[in-house]
Each structure stands twice: as structure tokens, then as C-alpha cells.
């Protein structure tokens, strides 16, 4: 799978309360959630994000609560993948489980807002069209690749049931 998209850039420790504040957790409808995605951190996000865009952040992205509403809101916004120096573990597994690619890359500081990235998910290679740089991600464990192949855990489980 090859993804091409523009970068939304954030810092370290972006928590689930700013990704989707708890005051909006009275719904689990992705269409409602996406309207408030990132609003306490970046008010322009939900109105300006385009399908295929990519979030790039520093360390510990998605720390805080276990709310799956967070990766769902991001995915519903059209974000095609998230690249961060590291992820909080529940956010990471939630993203994997809903089939939203999450990639860990050391050099996120050299990626800027608005950069155009080409991401080869399977091979774990990211090309930055703006500065010509290329970054590699740690390879994903087989089980996690299998989940991505099924577009998420629930399909993986449903396939096994058959």
C-alpha cells in the first residue's frame, strides 16, 4: 500500500483529551467525532484536513485514555497514516485494531507542516518530496501485519470464525 499526503505536524505527548475531548464522548459515531478532532490543540484541523493527509508528531503520541474514539476521529477525518517518534501503547493498539497505519520513525523533526510524503507501508519507507530525504520505520511484527491485511482486528477475528 502506497500513501501520498500532506503533513499536519504536532509535538510530543499529544494526548487523547486533545485529540477528542471527553465532552464529545457521548457518541461513538465517526462522522460526529471527526468534527471535533484535535479542536483543543488545533482549531483549523477539522475544517482544513484533506483525505489522505498524514499526521506527523513527536514522542508518546496518543497518551492518556483508552478511548478508541481518538484514532476513529482521526481516521474519519481522512488521515491516511500517523508517523511519530513513539506512540502510547493503547493508542497504538487501537489504531492497529481499526486498520489505521501507525509508523514509528526517529527523524520526525526534519519533517515539516505541509511537506508532501510518499509512504510505502509494507516496506516501511517514507520519502519526503520537499527535502528529498527518506526515512525507514522499524518492521512491523507479522501478527500486526496480518491485522492490517484484514483492515482491522474485528475482520481478522470474523475471518477466523468462518
Amino acid at each position, binding site marked *: 500500500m502506497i500513501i501520498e499526503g500532506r503533513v499536519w505536524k504536532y509535538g510530543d*505527548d499529544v*494526548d487523547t*483529551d*486533545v485529540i477528542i*475531548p*471527553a*465532552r464529545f*464522548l*457521548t*457518541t*461513538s459515531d465517526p462522522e460526529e467525532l471527526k468534527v471535533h478532532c484535535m479542536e*483543543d*490543540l488545533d482549531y483549523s484541523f477539522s475544517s482544513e484536513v484533506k483525505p489522505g493527509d498524514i499526521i506527523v508528531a513527536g*514522542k*508518546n503520541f496518543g*497518551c*492518556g*485514555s*483508552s*478511548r*478508541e*474514539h481518538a484514532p*476513529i476521529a482521526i481516521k474519519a477525518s481522512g488521515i491516511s497514516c500517523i508517523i511519530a517518534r*513513539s506512540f*502510547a*501503547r*493503547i493508542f497504538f*493498539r*487501537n489504531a492497529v*485494531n*481499526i486498520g489505521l497505519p501507525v509508523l514509528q520513525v526517529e527523524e520526525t523533526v526534519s519533517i515539516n507542516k505541509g511537506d508532501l510524503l510518499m509512504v510505502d507501508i509494507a516496506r516501511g519507507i517514507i520519502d519526503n518530496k520537499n527535502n528529498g530525504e527518506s526515512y525507514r520505520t522499524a518492521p512491523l*511484527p507479522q*501478527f*500486526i501485519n496480518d491485522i492490517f491485511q484484514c483492515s*482491522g*482486528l*474485528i*475482520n*481478522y*477475528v*470474523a475471518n477466523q*470464525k468462518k
Partner: protein
Amino acid sequence: MGKTTAEKIIADHSEAQELNAGDIVLANVDLLMANDVSGPMAVNTFKEINADRVFDHKKIVLIGDHFVPGKDIKSAEQVKVIRDFAREFKLLYFENEGIEHALLPEKGLVLPGQLIAGADSHTVTYGALGAMAFGIGATDMAAAMLTGWVWLKVPETMRIILKGSLSTWVSGKDIILYVINKIGVDGAVYRAIEFTGEGVDSLSMESRFTMANMTVEAGAKTVFFEVDSRAKNYIAERTSKQYRAYSSDSDAYFCETLEINLEDIDLQVAVPHQPSNGKNVREVAGVALDQVVIGSCTNGWLEDLRIAAGILEGKRVKQNLRLIIIPATRNIYKQALQEGLLNIFIDAGAVISPPTCGPCLGGYMGILAKGEKALATTNRNFVGRMGHKESEVYLAGPAVAAASAIKGSIIHPEEVVN
């Protein structure tokens, strides 16, 4: 080489004979839990694949605690989703009885050596009783309700050795804020934490629950306290079920070992907007407050209410400051009533809420307006956590909370009591 507690418990819950940190396995759960935020999403996902049975209805607990009693129409409908689902599949269900992480231990549902997956990040709390408990998401929950397993990466373990004993006023909240400040909000990501050392002996069960609860604020996957006589007594008072307690071998691999002398720890306050911003209370004394909240799965225990009542007795809360007190479970509420604590709170001018998460996550029952400052015994002080994105939350234990409510600004309790 020896094995850690986490490696042993996961191995005993999977098909693997032996496991090492970093391995990914499918592990069978002893207990699954979801609440009125994570549960509805899990139920919808479960229904999407037309699943028509659960793996074991006695091992799944659903709890209405975040937005109960019904806060508004939307949340009422969310709670209804899990209530109806629990009825349909004959699951354990609690509503209005308390906050999940205080309620499950109290009901005797948490046992040492169990593997517990909860669709809530503070599920780690049960590590105070020697269970391997960790947070999962709603899709995990849906899949596990059907299959009985979750996928897991075996964590490395970091050991925190506690020495000495606590100074006056200091409790589990201060220790954990001190630890998070030392290691940072990602200091334990993907790791299990083990608290050991002679310092643990002096810690009440409440303090251990508080500490275990907040290890997730340093990113921990799970946490263990040794199952000593205090823990065994706590369990024996609640259930006669059998269990197996695990501990790490002395030659197991620990990725990091930290030694902490409890005598070095004074009362802590974590300033906005990270739980790792812990400071000595004297450094932040004087910050004016609009609201104080004593409650949550972190510090809504009976011991916390006793400490608060000891300070508030015969005193009045500062004019124009709102003090909100939330016993974590119905049982704690009742005991506080019988001990006369609630009278003390009412006379001091506090509002007492039924057991709920309420303001802890900015749900209801104490939302902050723009520019307001609150001090809370909860676990997170993120931007907008308790209301408007320009409001601020300071985290502390019950002693600082009660004293600060009287003074109207952050203060060391000894200055109010004497």
C-alpha cells in the same frame, strides 16, 4: 534465566511454554471489563460481525459509571446500549454502584495472578492486588468478548524499590506523582512496573491502588505489587475464591531498577498540563483556586475521605470556592455516612456527589469555565480535561485538597490544621 511476574502470568494464560519480553502472543483473559464510554463502541463492533455468543458470560463485566445517572439524552442512550447488551448475554452489570476501578476490587472480582483486560486505561489499578491488568480499546473488547483472548506484547519489567517509610500527611498519591516526575510521562511505555522493597509494607491498600492507578500516566502497560498479608486480608474480606500469587525470580531480567527513599518525598502537586509536572506543595503554595474535587478512581477511597474529613472537621470551605466530594463506590459512600464523614463535609460547605467519574474527565458534576483553576485528587491534568480548554487542573492527594479548599489557594495542610 529467571522470569518476571509478567512473563509468568502471560505464559500461564497462553499456549506458549515459555515467554520473553517482546514476544507477541494471544493470551486468554480471566476478566474483561468495559464502561459506558468504551462499551457502546465495543457492542456496536461486536454486532457488526453478527456475533451471537460471548466466550464466557461470567467473565465479562460492563459498568455504567462515567455518565450516570443519565447526564443527557445522548449519554443515556450510550448507557442503555451496554445495559441492554448485558441483559441479552447475561453479563455482570453494575450501574450507579461505583467507579469501575474501585468497584471491581471491592466486589472481590479481582484476584492475584489473573489476566484482566479492561477497555479503560486505568485498568492497571488492579495490579495493587497482583493481577496482570491492562487497558485495551473497544475493538479489542469486542473481539475478546467473542474469542476470550487479546493479543499482547510481553512487556519488559522495571523495578521500583521503595525504602523507608512515609512522612506525615504523605500518601500513595505523592509517591506516584514523585515517581512520574522522575521518569516522565513516557518513562514506562510498554513496560511493566514492579513496586517492591520494605517501603511497600507500610502502604495501605488504598495507597497501593492510587499508585497502581497512575502508573499509566507514565505509559506503563501494567504494574504489580507483591501479594503480602495486607493484600491477602483485603481479598479474604471480600471473596473465598482461590488464586495463585506470582512473583519475579531473583535472577529475572529487569530493564531498569530505581530506588526511592520514601522519606525524601514531601506532599506533591502536579501543575498543568502534565501529570509529570510534580512539585513540592510549598513551591506552588498560593495559587488561587475556584474548585477542589476529592474523588475518582485514584483518590475516592475511604481512606482519602477520612484524611479530608480530618482536616475539614469544624472548618468552612473558602467563600466562592466549590468543594466537590465523590466517594468512589456506594459502599464507600455508606461507610463515610456511618462514620460521620459526610456530616463534616456538608457542614464545611461541600457538595457530595453520588459515585461517578463526573468531573474527572470533564463529563459533568463540576465542569470548569474558561480561565478557572481547580485542584483535584484525580489523575490527569491535560488541557481541557475538566472543562474549558483554557481552564487548569492541579493534581494532588486528599490532604492538600482539603486544606486548599479551606484556604482558597494551594497550601500545605499543616498550615491549616495547626
